[in-house]
């Protein structure tokens, strides 16, 4: 990131949200951290974005790591039968 861009971040929500994302899953420099803090201190919209962004990460993670029984993620019986048939056929060939 160029120096001039860093100066602008105080007023730049696009850069701030970029850094919010980068900070969550990677690393940002000390300088970037400071700039982000200054931005967030003065920008309530980006503060909301940051809160929601963190929650979204957790919800997405939960979605597959602690899934609840979900009927629309099941294969239909007809397809399963065909698949079973196919596997048995292959097994018998060997």
């Amino acid at each position: 990131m160029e120096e001039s861009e860093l100066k602008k971040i105080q007023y730049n929500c696009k850069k701030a949200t970029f850094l919010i994302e980068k900070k969550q899953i990677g690393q940002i420099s000390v300088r970037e951290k400071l700039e982000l803090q200054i931005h967030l201190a003065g920008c309530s919209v980006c503060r909301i974005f940051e809160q929601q962004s963190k929650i979204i990460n957790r919800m997405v993670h939960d979605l597959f790591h602690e899934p609840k029984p979900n009927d629309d993620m099941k294969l239909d019986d007809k397809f399963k039968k065909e698949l079973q048939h196919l596997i048995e056929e292959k097994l018998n060939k060997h």
Partner: protein
Amino acid sequence: MAELKMHIENSQAEANTGRTCAPQEWVNKYADYLYGYAIIRISDEEMARDLVQDTFLAALEKVEKFEGRSSEITWLTAILKNKITDIYRKKSSGLLKRQETSTEEQNPDDFFEVDDGHWKVAYQPQAFGLETYNPLMGKEFNNILKRCMQKLPSLWLAVFTMKHMDEETTEAICSKLKVTSSNYWVIIHRAKVSLRACLQKNWI
């Protein structure tokens, strides 16, 4: 998934008596799990079914090589995962060229003002109940979340799921999908901004 837990426990029980491979039981035991694993990552029912089938067939070919170092389900999931990555790669190689010509600033549906990077008023995030973690937000919210994820361009979805579901490293994702590190961060950012906006629009 309680069922999966059972599978894992079963597999662990097998481990004590020497791990075996029982392809006759695969469909019954693992088909739904593998399908769920695929559908959430590629959002195409037809393709997800094909992938489950391909996974079983590929596993059958290699069944002699199954040494029982991992459980059956772990082994099958690894095969499926490789197949999904192949699809991501194919999709992304077709998409990359187009995306490189349209840099973020030129994107028409950008959420930010081009000149100063402020949120466009219409896209400003608002509080809508997603500010604190609530694991009980429920099935309705999860369905919206899934639908919104499926609206992401396929390369973005690939990057997003590999990072947030599979918890792969940035380096691994960049090399598997052949995206540059800077493009990766742009995608991570844009995917989240889009996904958040979609959730706000559909949840309120």
